[in-house]
């Protein structure tokens, strides 16, 4: 699966956030979507996930057979900025959401969720309440939830925005480990994450179309 953007324009209210933007995002690749604050990274990610309609241009997903389709949230697991979690529930419960929403049996879902927690390095915190986890741990739980959902695409919006340097490093290692598993796009202006990515797409005006 790959994602193609052709001459896309995006509007936030009456303000043009992006005009004539084109890019391609390949499967099994970690792409950093870069740009300064306010450059429209989140808005573009939302459009790429099918949550927003572009004001102009087209966004298309291509299956492995080359069949095009419009983007849809049903194919995307989204890791938001900050920590969206069920704070009173355990880390495992939070990751189970991803697995259960794809129709797995409970036994299967627990196995998948546990594997996802191991993959992001927080399996030892599986039974801890989310409210007791650090920001970095919560962010890794969010990635585990996305992995467990079996969605072919993962978008992460500024995942290190509220993290300290150590947590950012740990998350970068997680992303490096995940980069060959999905079509993975991380909106960020963090140099550590950009370094971890295989490719980068910049939203700086001079870089549009690259």
């Amino acid at each position, binding site marked *: 699966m790959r994602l193609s953007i052709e001459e896309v324009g995006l509007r936030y209210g009456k303000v043009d956030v992006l005009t004539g933007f084109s890019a391609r995002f390949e499967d099994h690749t970690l792409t950093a979507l870069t740009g300064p604050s306010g450059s429209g990274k*989140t808005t573009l990610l*939302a459009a790429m*996930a099918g*949550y*927003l309609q572009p004001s102009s241009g087209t966004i298309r997903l291509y299956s492995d057979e080359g069949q095009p389709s419009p983007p*849809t*949230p*049903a194919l995307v*697991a*989204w*890791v*938001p*900025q*900050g*920590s*969206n*979690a*069920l*704070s*009173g*529930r355990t880390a495992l*419960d*939070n990751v189970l*959401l*991803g697995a*259960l*929403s*794809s*129709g797995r049996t*409970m036994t299967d*879902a627990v196995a998948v969720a546990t594997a996802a927690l191991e993959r992001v390095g927080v399996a030892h915190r599986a039974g801890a*309440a989310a*409210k007791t986890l650090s920001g970095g741990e919560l962010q890794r739980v*969010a990635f585990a*939830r*996305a992995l*467990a*959902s079996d*969605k072919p695409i993962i978008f992460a*919006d500024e995942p290190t925005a509220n993290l300290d340097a150590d947590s950012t490093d740990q998350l970068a290692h997680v992303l490096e480990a995940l980069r060959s598993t999905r079509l993975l796009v991380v909106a960020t202006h963090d140099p550590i994450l950009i370094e971890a990515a295989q490719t980068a797409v910049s939203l700086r005006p001079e870089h549009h179309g690259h």
Partner: protein
Amino acid sequence: MDTDRWRLTHLVREVARNVLNARSRPALLLFLAVIFGVGGIGYAAAESHALANQLAAEQAAGRNIISFGALDPNEPVLIDRASCDQLTEIAGVTRAGLVQLATSRDFLQLGTNVPVLAASQTLFPALRDGVVLVGSALRPPAATDFTLATTEGTLMQARVNHAEPTGLNTNSVVVVPLTPGTTSTSACIAVLDQRADASLLTPILTARLHTAGGQIVAQPASSPAIDPVKAYLSRPGQYVPLILGLVGGLATGLVNRSRTSELAAYRLSGTSARSSALLLGLETALIAGVTATSAVAAILALHDRIQTPLATACIALAGAATWWLTGILATIDIPFRNAISLAKDR
């Protein structure tokens, strides 16, 4: 429209884990549901207690005691004994029967010139035990029957009667059974259930009496300006569970609005808006169910202190339904909002 493959059993498990979890915000609603469920019924019990006190006071003052007699003293009336005694067969009539002021007699234990009233056993059921009834003002209450003697030497088994309300006026007399040969007298008295509507029953009772002579009239022993039972049945306080349900539903909406970050976790990891709405609906149903269960348990515990337990239960259940409906209406937009804006809204 986005879709997911949540199994209903797993979604129900999520509902239980979100609500029945002391660390979660909906747990606060659960606590509120119990307080409101029990509190609403406690309030109903307090109102019932106030009504019971008022009825007891009004009963002593003659409430719901109807005397039937001649409309015009110059045109005496005779009321058939059987028709008067049979008024007890009508729903809402506690006891009824003929009365006849027989005479006055001198008793060794009670003094001289004590009035003696003859009455039907259907009006004073204790007469069926073969005793005469001594008015409570004539002799202190006693645990056992005693032998009452007239100054002429006649002996009879006697029992001190409990205090009778105004309208029966037998606290200072000795009541004896009507003789079998007495088939009519000039007065019939009916004691109605305290919750009965005397204004509705009186014409029915009057029509059932067989009379001879002049016209009869029904006279209530007491005519309060406000019927406490009617006032109780139309009291605004009975709708307190509905108001509590409304408040609970609004509180549910507020709590759910403080959980947008949690709902974003569901939506952004593959849960559809429809499943998220179902989740919130089921959570609200569980909370409303707890308030209904608490209310029903309180009614079962306090049923003998509540005047109208069935009606109270119905209103409590309507209160729970109000909670659920208000909670849904106060929440329904949240799962259908853009999932990304939900994630930012915290």
